[in-house]
């Protein structure tokens, strides 16, 4: 197809509309980022409290997870059903979730009833009730999830990896907690988890949509002004363990889940962008990586294989996952090791150029929709990035040279130290 080749040769970087980020500081001193857009009469708001489930007190594993799930189960004068009815009557959406590094609140609300929606959300953040019937109902749901995870090969493999990689650090155990720890949680434990995680000294906020800086400032004071100034101390950094070799656990079924990991690097590392390119060529980007080529396209061993730079607040690793038929486990592991070793020897100029075009071309496409923009803006703040980062990010990718990528591939990839977790009936 000659037409395509000509088109590629003439390609220039697309000119994208600028994402204009404003920094807003409320009267009460709370900061947020805002992308103002009055086309559609609603606002997306994202609030993230750093720390998350890693702030569980000793012996209280699962407290932050259960607490977060209860934020929408009644606050102030409203019980769980009253809260749900009020929220739905306003057609607002509030989502509360936690992970190992944060508690997240994602909201969207219409302009015409924004004040009522904000008042309701303020109640959920600052006056959750933790009523006994709600606690028991949601505790029952969490216990069922814990039980289900014991029969889910992907969950089993994830737990094995985290324990092997992070040991006694909170990253090393499941944030849901255990049957014993969750059963023992009291209302006081939940109150302590709420006060410890949702504090003003660790909050990051972004909004996108139909709201002005002044309106957002007032909303920040309303929503967050009533929270404690200081939360529980954040966990310490942890050195990633990479024992090497293959750890196995039997599980019935036609397929075996394989997870693998090795050391990664931090976002702040000067080699971060080169490492991102290495990961894209290795196993990122869906259909165009070396692992996808070798494992799926050439050998038909799997439906999908991928890798990613896992960057936590207190640790970092390079991880991958694949699921294969039980009789293909040994072959798949051998191919992964070969690809790893091959890439450590370097990449071609063509691979580098294609990956750069992908990374620079796809970056602006991420900013589609108020909710996604608000989420990205919170992530940027947590990494300590400046507001002009979206305008400068592609230049940082473009600046990476073939020498950089080959040096970083050799530095980053350690095929001999790659560790595997294998869950299923397949034999490595």
């Amino acid at each position, binding site marked *: *197809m000659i037409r395509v080749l000509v088109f590629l040769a003439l390609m220039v970087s*697309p000119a*994208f509309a600028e994402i204009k980020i404003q920094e807003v500081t409320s009267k009460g001193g709370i900061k947020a980022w805002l992308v103002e857009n009055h086309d559609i*009469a609603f606002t997306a708001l994202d609030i993230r409290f750093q720390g998350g489930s890693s702030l569980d007190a000793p012996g209280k594993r699962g407290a932050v997870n259960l607490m977060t799930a209860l934020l929408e189960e009644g606050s102030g004068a409203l019980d769980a059903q009253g809260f749900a009815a009020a929220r739905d009557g306003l057609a607002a959406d509030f989502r509360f979730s936690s992970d190992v590094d944060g508690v997240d609140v994602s909201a969207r609300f219409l302009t015409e009833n924004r004040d009522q929606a904000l008042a309701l959300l303020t109640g959920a953040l600052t006056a959750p009730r933790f009523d006994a019937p709600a606690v028991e109902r949601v505790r029952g749901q969490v*216990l069922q999830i814990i039980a289900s995870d014991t029969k889910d090969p992907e969950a089993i493999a994830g737990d094995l990896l985290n324990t092997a990689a992070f040991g006694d650090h909170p990253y090393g155990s499941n944030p849901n907690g255990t049957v014993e720890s969750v059963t023992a949680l009291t209302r006081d434990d939940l109150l302590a988890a709420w006060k410890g995680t949702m504090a003003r000294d660790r909050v990051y906020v972004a909004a996108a949509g139909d709201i002005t800086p002044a309106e957002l400032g007032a909303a920040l004071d309303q929503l967050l002004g009533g929270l404690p100034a200081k939360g529980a101390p954040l966990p310490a950094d942890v050195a990633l363990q990479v024992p090497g070799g293959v750890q196995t656990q039997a599980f019935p079924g036609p397929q075996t889940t394989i997870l693998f990991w090795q050391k990664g690097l931090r976002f702040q590392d000067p080699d971060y962008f080169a490492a991102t390119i290495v990961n894209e060529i290795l196993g990122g980007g869906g259909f165009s990586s070396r692992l996808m080529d070798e494992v799926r396209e050439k050998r038909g061993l799997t439906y999908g294989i991928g890798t990613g730079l896992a960057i936590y607040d207190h640790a970092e690793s390079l991880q991958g996952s694949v699921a294969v038929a039980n009789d293909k486990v040994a072959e798949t592991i051998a191919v992964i090791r070969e690809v790893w070793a091959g890439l450590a020897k370097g990449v071609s100029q063509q691979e580098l150029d294609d990956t750069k075009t992908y990374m620079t071309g796809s970056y602006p496409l991420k900013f589609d929709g108020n909710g996604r923009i608000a989420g990205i803006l919170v992530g940027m703040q947590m990494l300590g990035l400046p507001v002009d980062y979206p305008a400068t990010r592609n230049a940082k990718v473009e600046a990476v040279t073939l020498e950089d990528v080959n040096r970083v591939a050799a530095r980053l990839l350690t095929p001999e130290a790659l560790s595997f977790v294998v869950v299923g009936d397949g034999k490595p």
Partner: protein
Amino acid sequence: MRKFLTVALTLLALPAFMLPAFARPVTTYKLDNGLEVVVIEDHRAPVVVHMVWYRIGSADEPRGHSGIAHFFEHLMFQGTKSVAPGALSKIVAAQGGSDNAFTTQDYTAYFQRVAADRLDLVMGLEADRMVNLNLTVKDVETEREVILDERNQRTDSDPGSLLQEQMGAAQYLNHPYGTPVIGWRSEIAGLTREDALAFYRANYAPNNAILVVAGDVTPADVLALAQKNYGPIKPSDAITPRIRAAEPPQLAPRRLVMEDARVAQPYVVRTYLVPERNPGDQKQAAALTILAELLGGNPSTSVLARALMFDKPVATYVSANYDGVSLDPTTFGLVVVPAAGVGLEDAEKAMDATLAEFLKKGVDQAEFDRIQAQLRAKQVYDEDNTQGAAHRYGMALASGLTVQDVQDWPGVLTSVTPADVMAAAALLDARHSVTGWLQEEKAQ
């Protein structure tokens, strides 16, 4: 001659909410070769979604060749005379774009999302593989292994998916919706290159496809590019109307108990055979949509949640689901996950008692009003999701609906009354139902 028809998104009277300040113009036309084209404009960001939807799904497969529609979707990435195997995705990725494809019972769709100035490129690639696909025996065999792995991953490793497959087969005695989209393992294993090529020639043609382009484009530019890329492709005379084997009346309820050692959490699923959205006639489907919301939409205030999770806590999760976009009659589903210590029999009894009570007492007006408020607000929120809009149009058109039906749908939903909902609830008749229990297999 091309037909050119511009229709602005219909804005309905919204009693409790202001009108959306922003609306996406939608333009439709048809090329001489029969390709239908839908253009949805959104100039907020310089991005475009390009989708081609074929009116061919798993329910249109020849008997004994289950899974070929989905298998063929994979083979569409195997290259043409001018594009190497796997290269299409790489070309799109090298432009910063993403691409993928999916197959359902009623359609197969391919899409790319790229910067708006790359539309010509992706159109060229998509038009090329509509007719110029190149398949080697080796490519077909390798991809068949990938599909068997996909079936392992999505279905055979998951007792819940296996139950769903069994329930579909039980729900449809004669209609092809009883066959899983991915296909039965033994039949997938037997699919050949010749089967694939025969399927390709029979179904892939401009007069069996819908092109949806959404984003920062003008209708005139899209039309010119569509003429250039798709215009030269000849229509097929092999395309026939999709008339599938009809389902005979269900005279007896059907029950399944599935046991699997991998089940951690038992549950009850119920499905009823009900009508789908039909062109110019969407009222009953709209009432069923709202019925599903009322019965199980909200985890705190829906009828099933109130009764089974709050008033008498016998369940930890309930839901009701219905999607009216379907070429032929579809299912209305209920799920109840019992609380610890509650058996499946008691959970099912409690579910049925709640339904009976609902049929007697009728709709809670306050809950009904909240659902209507959310449906109206959805029209505002949906304006922020152009890819979602492209999906709604493509899915509907490939399932026998028209552009007008898509634009009427929000209004039909808001016009539903509590009496319409209760009439729809009468369709949940045990005689047209399938009930499935998923439970742990105990060691012998």
